[in-house]
């Protein structure tokens, strides 16, 4: 795939969310337009989180599949995103 769409589920009071956000920002500078990140505040958009069955934040869905709950290790996140980019999609 040429692009990867990451839904970053967060909430204003979440302790781990800023760390995930920062990881994604670093990856975005490396990957440029290939990485699209949407921040989804679960206190505002509860429906989207419910669709994925998300019960805690931070959580990350990559191209529509929930891949991480909790704060991932940077290498794991990078690997998951690169797999999407390199795969057929």
């Amino acid at each position, binding site marked *: *795939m040429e*692009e*990867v*769409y990451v*839904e970053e589920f967060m909430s204003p009071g979440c302790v*781990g969310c800023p760390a995930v956000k920062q990881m994604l920002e670093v990856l975005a500078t490396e990957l440029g337009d290939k990485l*699209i990140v*949407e921040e989804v505040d*679960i*206190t505002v*958009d*509860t*429906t*989207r*989180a*419910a*669709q*994925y*069955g998300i*019960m*805690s934040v931070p959580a990350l869905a990559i*191209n*529509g*599949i*929930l*891949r*991480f*709950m*909790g*704060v*991932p*290790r940077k290498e*794991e996140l990078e690997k998951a995103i690169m797999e999407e980019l390199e795969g*057929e*999609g």
Partner: protein
Amino acid sequence: MNPKNKAKIGVFICHCGKNIAGGLDIEALAESTKHIEGVAYVGDNKFSCSEDGQVSIQEAIRDNNLDRVIVAACDPSLHLMTFQRCGEKSGMETQFVDLIDIRKWTMHGSPHKDNPEEALAKSRKLIELAVKRMSLKKLIPMVEFPAEKSILVIGGGVAGLEAGLDLAEKGYDVHIVEKLPTIGGKMALLYKVFPTNDCAPCILAPKTAYANIHPRINLMTNSEVKSVEGYIGNFDIEVVQTPRYIDTEKCTGCGECVNACPCRVVDDIYAAGMGERKAIYFPFDQAIPKKPVIDAQNCLYFRKKVCRLCEKNCPADAIDFKQMSKKIDIKAGAIVVASGFDEYDPSPKSEYGYGRYSNVITQFQLARLLDIDGPTRGKLLRPSDGREPHSIAMIQCVGSRDKKTNDYCSNICCMYALKHAQMIREMILPDAEIYILYIDMRTTGKGFEEYYRKTREMGIHFIRGRPSEIMEKPDTRNLLMEVEDPDIGRLLEIDADLVVLSCATVPSEGSEQLSQFLKIERDEAGFFKELHPKLRPVETNVRGIYICGAAQGPKDIPDSIIQAKAAASFADGELRNHKIKLPAFMVQTRGINQGGS
């Protein structure tokens, strides 16, 4: 969709009458949407959710071979299901139908309403993101699995009992977990209930008694939920039961142990601090289970290793000082949260002197004093000298409708003040002067206005105003206050023997921790938050967890019953086929990384 091909996305923009069309240029939005990569069709409807609107979406799916649909309209919690069903009728996978909310920027009255240019720009951006997301979205594999045929109910008050009994009658095994040593909740301690002035324990007892003997109900008193894992159909719950120090199998409830106990302590729970109990005690006469409980913090044996008089006097040999906390694991398909409310502690409102002046009490304390089974056996005696009060002032909205404490109206305080005024006038002290000092009297339930009128006709004084401060007379311990009555345009001075504060209803202690265990949201006031304030009043953000009663917000008994029945109905609706369909990753956690180290 062939993976080599791009997705064919249809975008449908809803006018929502004038709600969206009146706040942005639909034509311009449709035009720009056509140029987004991946968009194969753009349509607009006056009302996309109408029958005509849905038919036009279905026709567009068929005519253009669309394999993704985005409806730009309103809040997904309202209509996502509508459009998913609509797409499903045209053979589309429901996961490939999405609804995005552009109405929040256009609708009059919306807190996010923006000017037309901003609304258009934001809507364009949101549609662009949704198109990108949908074009890259992969299908989430679903899996069907068997659901547990049991339910956990948290809270043994009237709402929890109603939900539990309904579900047990529908064939579920129900576990009711109650923190206190008896079921019945606050209602069991009210003596009378408005607007019928029925005896509260009398109308509650059929429910408590049936719950106690129901073959499909497992009552766990003195118990608290300590952890919750899993998902709808398969929740794993850990409950910890604190010891009663009584072998309930052997105990006959004769009360010899209570008679023998030499230790007296203030009863903060069942007498609301207005009376005493022993260190081994029955919560109240109609308590269920009717077994005593030892308060280890005050028992002489636990404190000083002396006494054991209860043990010596028990004819059934049922006292067991060696009992330990017990961990109980429960499996449940769904959870109903009915953890109730607490009365606001008015101590921070120092102008009223609660905690400083002994003759200032709360309405819940008054309820206990008026109860024939209460600490004074139904006599209204003021705390400072045990004398009957001749003048009683009730102050409304203490801790409610107050920006410094709780902004919300507590819903029930006007009615319970009226109830107590009626009870005092009719049954206890007919000659006492009773003043109700209020901001507004809010009596909106069925039969409530008539109840208010009746109270006025009984000669209760209603004064539209509240004192800024209460002073205590050092010699008599009476309470002095000045109130401006705008109805007669005069400043009134009231010399009251007893002041009763109508305190706010606040979330029960432990709600915050419970919300963390259950991962359900709370509202700004701390009550558990429903999924939609109008249309989904018992569901939460976690599928399979439902809320009812005062745990969701201040409400009276009939409303609690209605909501409990709704919660039971929802739980049954989800579990009745004994099967649940969920995304595969929720069931087999493989593939989900639970976070770094």
